[in-house]
């Protein structure tokens, strides 16, 4: 089943995804599809299941029912090779989660060396290029604790990119940042999107979503209420809940 996928099919395909924590159903039948190179943003009030959804896409959490396919690989398959899946999917977290005992460059280099078994010298060249790409050239030997939140988050992005993923997931990556450093992270993500990386973002930055997204999904209480291209969703939302939410945040 994994072999049947071709690049013209959706790279991520969620069909009626449900997820419960005990009696609490967090995702109540989510369906969405993402094409290669597309940037989609998931917006919605807190607790609407946005973060849970992208954590399920990465198999960090198992789904209760439904189907998620990444390049044709079924994520809910019990025989799933999670490690193989995660090599295709990079993830950036709200709290950066850098490894505190390693320098910025080592953080970026670790996974390719130990997980992919690539040569240290090659990885180092690539890691330095990535550090430059996220505008952190010169900070290679700095430890995470000495970097600002925005810098740490950009190292985290570089760390994920070093695995050469096909898809990048961003879980509220600017939510924990100081306002002045939010911009530098968003610039990095936008450049990534412009390079053609498939991105799924959970975000509260509406202006950013409007600017970079090809498609915006509005979720509330575990369902997708409405979705569409940003220009229609942000200006001519049909659903009352969407209108209400947008009037509060815009």
């Amino acid at each position, binding site marked *: 089943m994994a072999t049947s996928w071709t690049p013209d099919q959706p790279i991520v395909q969620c069909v009626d995804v449900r997820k419960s924590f005990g009696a609490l159903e967090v995702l109540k039948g989510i369906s969405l599809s993402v094409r290669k190179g597309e940037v989609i943003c998931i917006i919605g009030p807190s607790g609407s299941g946005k973060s849970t959804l992208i954590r399920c896409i990465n198999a960090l959490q198992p789904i209760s029912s439904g189907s998620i396919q990444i390049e044709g690989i079924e994520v809910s398959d019990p025989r799933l090779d999670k490690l193989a899946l*995660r090599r295709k999917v*990079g*993830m950036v977290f709200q709290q950066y*989660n850098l*490894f505190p*005992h390693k320098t910025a460059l080592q953080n970026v280099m670790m996974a390719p060396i*130990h997980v992919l078994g690539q040569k240290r010298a090659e990885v180092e060249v690539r890691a330095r290029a990535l550090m430059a790409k996220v505008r952190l050239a010169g900070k290679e030997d700095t430890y995470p604790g000495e970097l600002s939140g925005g810098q740490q988050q950009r190292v985290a992005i570089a*760390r*994920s990119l070093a695995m050469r993923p096909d898809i990048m997931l961003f879980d509220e990556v600017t939510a924990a940042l100081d306002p002045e450093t939010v911009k530098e992270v968003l610039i990095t993500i936008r450049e990534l999107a412009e390079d053609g990386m498939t991105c799924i973002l959970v975000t509260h930055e509406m202006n950013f979503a409007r600017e970079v997204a090809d498609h915006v999904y509005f979720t509330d209480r575990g369902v997708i209420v409405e979705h569409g291209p940003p220009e229609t969703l942000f200006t001519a939302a049909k659903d009352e809940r969407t209108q209400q939410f947008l009037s509060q945040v815009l």
Partner: protein
Amino acid sequence: MKTAGSEQRLAVLLPYRLVPSRMSIRIGPLSAAILCFCVMMAASTAWAQTTPTMLSPLQIIVKWSPLLLRGFAFNILISLLAMLLGTAAGLGLGLGLLSEFRPLAAVSWLLTQFFRNAPWLVLLFFIMFLVPFQITVFKTTIPLPDWIKATVGFALPVMANVAEVVRGAVRSVPSTQWEAAESLSFTRRQTIWLIMLPQCIKRMLPPWMNVYALVAMSTVLASIVGVSEMLTLTAQVHAAEGGRPELFAPLYGFALLCFFLYCYPINLWTARLERRFRVR
């Protein structure tokens, strides 16, 4: 001025308070220990002076100190080896506790609980009497002297305590570190060895040193099973000097002082490390 005057007049109405004196004498634990020892020595010296033909306790300690200190060095050797052995085994056991393979985790848990909650002396007896004095492997006879067996006996509780230290330290790493490692496709083993343990070393150091200080002090238990460490030698010296009761305090006091001087700096250092690692 006015208020000062009224205070003076009304001072009699105020409840009586002891004025704290500024001349408080502060004695640190280290100087206190040495002071105690000196007092003990002085007291027994005074007593010993009634029989001038015999050596004073101080002279006896000086006379025997090479032997006694060699015994003490033996205690330290046993404690270091037990710590080495116990740490290696404890790391393995601790990783067993963290294993996702249920049976392994269960067995590790059982072993840890058993050896943590067994009296050290009982464990020591078990090892002393269950392990033969020599073993033959492929026609080679390896002698197992008492002190080696005692070392193993001490290594067992060390193992269990270190296992618990490892487990606690790894568990104290935020779960987000596990998620980050997972999302980068690290295997569980890689995550533990490359990401968890290196982060934990600092956190593990103070409790680990605590365990060491306990082991160092417990090595005297080996005297009960006949290992010629410091306490055994002290008893022998005491007997050799005719078992005079006034020698009891100085001789054993000397042993106490040796252990104190060895363990107190370790504990001091541990406390300092704990303070330093708490402020992050």
